[in-house]
């Protein structure tokens, strides 16, 4: 056998590939360091020295010095830049100064918390000081819990645990809350949308309790690169923040390559499938034993790519060393995969954005993205998975046919010059706010004069009194209900209950193989759906909607399924309107009825539609915020049918463009067009938040509509297709000159 090729050789080969449309190199950077501050305890110093850390990177130094002044900080740090020292150093220092001091670390997931504990305990052991750090999560045994509460210097947990187990039982944590010196919020950028809005309220509750016990902790946040780290940190913690972004960590050379699959159907501008290209590219690296991570946009896509790659390389390296990773896998499986990657037993992993987070899987050499991840910030996060401090790394983004992918790869300056997106939260979402006010009143009686965020909450308190959830006695509101409010509130999703997936392939040995939130289950776990899990195909035999259980059985079929939703939309209230010449832009409240209608069976190899079936599930109703564009005067020459198609085309473009501009997942904001809107009879395009009460996305669209419009026009104009393709306005257009007319129509708004 001829010897393996090195990464440099593969990079040299790749340079000749004609499908590469942009090659961007990121120059290596030397380390920028500062001497260890004199105030640092000698035991910490020597323990760090043993780990090869004699000096601090510039950002670590600034973080330390700023915290010594008592300011809150948010440190923006790329992957592998030593961000943990930004908080571990000041926290350990404060405990060496006073053994009573306490710190609370909050990580978005249990896995990250576990990672941290191991790393922290290594340093502590070398320091030779009795500092106790513990994780506190669902897996912590009752006996350890007692010890953690009373004697843990550093308690490492996640927001869910803080919300449902620590805050509602704060009287068992008196020594923590009386002495809380630092609160660390790692992976700040993950706290956006619904989740972030919830967590901001959990932090309000935390601060209330600290105040009760007489402490006032300093917040240390760390974040990946986003446009508004300071704003987000301030919104999330309610404290003024100092931004620290003078990254001084060294890095090796990185090649950031855009790959556009060849066109296979010229008139329709259809390109070769990104999935197929990714399979072949990943194969090359894996065959040569180069550790590679492949990112895919959806859970289904992960499973499809995984099974293909496993098939392609099974003779060379065996399928066990290529694994999938996504939500829905059980924690134990995930831990095993993470460890395998760190230790090098696992050569390749195909993942959803679940691995964007700082889960420690070591640094890989190659990152392949199947399509644009949807946001600049997310792309840099995924790209950060490849790259070591020294040596080369390759990041390969393979574009799909979607408009935004095509736009990005053809306008590389858009990506490389653009600042990343903002992370938005709306802690004042009424449903979320009401939920947490209930929890707050449960935890400590609520004074009329008390603040809970910027909104005047008196009306809400009175509402809760009317609903007999709280009781007013003088100027104080007391919890007056038999329930445990935190138990019914999930921070992670709109729907409270998840659907449990039960494999009944073996009679008598039914196994739970995963779970899924309610809204996703409507489209992925309906009767007859093909559900993929770890590369294995299952068919859903029955979705028991009342009991939130999906019964599946292993199958071997040549297709996957894709569900359609029927959506009805009613405007409830118009909050703001901006009239333009022939149009108006509006913002307000809407009610939406969602009903899954049919599913299609799509052949795995050719992606052709080979059948369909109905979905019988109850309708879900959603009250939320929306922005909508109304056409008040219609060109009489434009037939209704044509107009309808143009609106559909523009919706298609907006659905692609908007998530990029307001930084959210594609699923967080939905676009619907109506030729005759119910409330006015006018042609209208709606964009709504896919969460009860709204989380501020539609509002953002309303505020920045001109920017969104410009991006949409630009996308249509730059698309190389003849007159409409799936990458821009879609293919449903019959009339000629649809692209030109779409742009004209957009210009009216």
């Amino acid at each position, binding site marked *: 056998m001829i010897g393996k090729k090195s990464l440099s050789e593969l990079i040299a080969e790749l340079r000749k590939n004609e499908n590469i449309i942009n090659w961007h190199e990121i120059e290596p950077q030397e380390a920028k360091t500062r001497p260890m501050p004199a105030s640092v305890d000698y035991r910490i110093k020597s323990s760090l020295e043993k780990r090869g850390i004699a000096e601090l990177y510039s950002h670590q130094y600034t973080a330390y010095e700023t915290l010594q002044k008592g300011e809150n900080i948010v440190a923006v740090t790329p992957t592998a830049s030593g961000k943990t020292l930004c908080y571990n150093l000041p926290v350990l220092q404060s405990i060496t100064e006073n053994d009573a001091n306490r710190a609370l670390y909050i990580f978005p997931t249990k896995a990250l918390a576990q990672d941290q504990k191991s790393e922290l305990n290594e340093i502590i052991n070398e320091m030779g000081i009795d500092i106790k750090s513990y994780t506190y999560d669902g897996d912590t045994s009752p006996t350890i819990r007692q010890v953690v509460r009373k004697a843990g210097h550093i308690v490492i947990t996640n927001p869910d645990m803080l919300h449902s187990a620590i805050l509602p039982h704060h009287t068992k944590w008196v020594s923590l809350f009386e002495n809380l010196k630092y609160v660390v919020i790692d992976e700040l950028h993950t706290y956006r949308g619904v989740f972030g809005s919830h967590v901001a309220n959990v932090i309000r509750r935390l601060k209330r309790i600290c105040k009760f016990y007489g402490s006032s902790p300093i917040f240390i946040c760390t974040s990946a690169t986003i446009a508004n780290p300071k704003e987000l940190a301030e919104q999330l913690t309610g404290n003024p923040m100092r931004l620290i972004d003078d990254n001084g960590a060294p890095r090796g050379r990185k090649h950031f390559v855009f790959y556009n699959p060849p066109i296979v159907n010229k008139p329709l501008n259809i390109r070769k499938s990104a999935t197929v290209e990714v399979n072949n590219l990943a194969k090359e690296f894996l065959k040569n034993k180069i550790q590679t991570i492949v990112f895919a946009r959806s859970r289904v896509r992960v499973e499809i790519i995984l099974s293909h790659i496993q098939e392609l390389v099974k003779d060379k390296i065996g399928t066990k060393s290529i694994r999938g990773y996504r939500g829905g896998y059980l924690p134990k499986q995930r831990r095993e995969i993470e460890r395998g990657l760190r230790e090098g037993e696992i050569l390749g992993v195909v993942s959803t954005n679940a691995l964007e987070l700082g889960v420690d899987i070591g640094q890989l050499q190659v990152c392949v993205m199947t399509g644009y991840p949807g946001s600049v910030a997310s792309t840099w996060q995924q790209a950060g998975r490849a790259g070591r401090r020294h040596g080369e790394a390759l990041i390969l983004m393979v574009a799909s046919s979607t408009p935004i992918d095509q736009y990005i790869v053809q306008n590389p300056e858009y990506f490389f010059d653009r600042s990343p997106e903002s992370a938005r939260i709306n802690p004042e979402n009424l449903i979320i706010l009401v939920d947490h006010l209930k929890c707050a009143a*449960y935890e400590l009686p609520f004074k009329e004069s008390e603040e809970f965020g910027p909104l005047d909450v008196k009306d809400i308190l009175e509402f809760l009194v009317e609903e007999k959830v709280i*009781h007013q006695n003088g100027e104080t509101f007391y919890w007056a209900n038999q329930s445990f409010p935190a138990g019914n509130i999930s921070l992670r999703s709109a729907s409270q209950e998840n659907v449990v997936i039960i494999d009944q392939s073996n009679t008598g040995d039914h196994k739970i193989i995963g779970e899924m939130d309610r809204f996703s289950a409507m489209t992925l776990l309906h009767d007859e759906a093909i559900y993929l899990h770890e590369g294995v195909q299952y068919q859903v035999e029955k979705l028991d909607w009342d009991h939130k259980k999906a019964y599946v059985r292993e199958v071997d079929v040549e297709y996957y399924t894709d569900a359609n939703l029927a959506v009805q939309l009613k405007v409830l209230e118009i909050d703001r309107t901006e009239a333009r010449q022939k149009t108006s832009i509006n913002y307000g409240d809407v009610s939406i009825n969602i009903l899954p209608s049919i599913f299609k069976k799509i052949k795995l190899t050719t992606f052709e539609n080979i059948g369909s079936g109905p979905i019988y599930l109850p309708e879900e109703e959603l009250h939320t915020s929306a922005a909508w564009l109304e056409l008040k005067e219609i060109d009489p020459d434009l037939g209704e049918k044509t107009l309808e198609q143009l609106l559909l085309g523009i919706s298609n473009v907006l659905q692609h463009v908007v998530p990029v501009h307001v930084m959210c997942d594609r699923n967080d904001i939905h676009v619907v067009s109506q030729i005759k809107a119910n409330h006015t009879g006018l042609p209208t395009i709606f964009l709504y938040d896919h969460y*009860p009460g709204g989380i501020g996305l539609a509002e953002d669209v309303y505020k920045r509509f001109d920017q969104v419009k410009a991006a949409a026009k630009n996308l249509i104009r730059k698309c190389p297709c003849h007159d409409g393709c799936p990458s821009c306005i879609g293919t449903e257009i019959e009339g000629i000159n649809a692209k030109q007319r779409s742009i004209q129509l957009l210009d009216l708004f």
Partner: protein
Amino acid sequence: MSLKSKLGRLKGHMTLNTEAPSEPVNSNPVREKEEGGASIPFEQVWAEHSTGTYKMDGQFCLIREVHYPVDYQHGIYTLKEARKAVEEWNAVSYTHPLSSKGLRVEDMFFFDTETTGLGGGVGNTIFLLGYAFFHEKTVTVRQHILPQPGFEIPLYQSFLEKVNYHTLVTYNGKAFDWPQLKTRHTLIRDHVPRLPDYGHFDLYHASRRLWKDDMDKVKLVNVEKNILGIERKDDVPGFLAPYIFFDFVERKDPEGLLGIIRHNELDVLTLITLYAHLSKQLLQKETTGKSLEVARWYMGLGEKEKAVRTYERVLAGNNAEERMAAAHALAFQWKREKQFGKAVNAWLEVSKKGKAEQRIEALIELSKIYEHQEKEYSKARECADSALGILSGLGNSKKRETMELDLLHRLKRLDKKLKTGGWN
């Protein structure tokens, strides 16, 4: 849009948990006359039910006090049996977690709470603190009642002023009532005296130990019915307490709440009867068929002498099954004391008449003694072989698998010893 109308619209998305209780609450029309802020609603009705008020800084709580003669019969005993039990504990030399040696019955208070919810979260409010305590001729039941959320300072202030005892007696109070009281106390700790450290007898664990095989759930009502001969009439079930309390807070009419107060009163009286009864079991003053459990408990506590005496008592009884269990347990004790002869005789009997598991264990023990003490390898082998035979007739379990492996190993070793006569 106004905040209020938005709240109304989004109500369907919220979980407000205000659904009605599954069983109807007896509710009467509002009868309250509008009274001035200073006076206490229904003060007259409260007074008729032996309840007065405790006022403090513009707040108040209610305190109810009733007295029972010590000759009052509650279930199978009169209240004064508890005094006798304490005296008897003082007369013995061994110890036990429920022993009141060194105490007088006047040092104890029999304590129970009623709360607005389930579980141990901070927001679960205690609205009734009830306890019974002894005087020479009488027993007093005193209950401190929260008239509405927010008046906890007088509730705990009055409680801490009046409770001056050494040891509390509860039913599951270690896991629930006392931690919950500590939690609520923490919230107002700057305004009331600190909580003293009390001794604590939790009768729930003792009851579970003795009667868990006799009832579905070892709840206090079940113990009352099945063991203590107490049948409650028109009792308001405890799970309705939150609904009744919130209804009372709204309407102020004591009527519904009086039912809960009565329920709590019976609970604390039962604690007296239960303490007397458990003590009699543990002191073995009466044989009511629980000697075996009692003996095991003493053995577990390391009170060997008391344990052995209690086992011997079982052995002298006429329940065949229990006698085997006692013989088996005693044999282990004799083995530890190197009284091998006695142990062998006991195990020989158990190996014939015991339950399957006991027979196997007895045979294994016999095999060990024959092998190591008496060097009778063929006898030892015979016993091990019989044990294996019984074992193979039983179903599978992890414990049995280990036993089987152990026996096979034992047999192999014995075969070797039989060949070499033990010399290798």
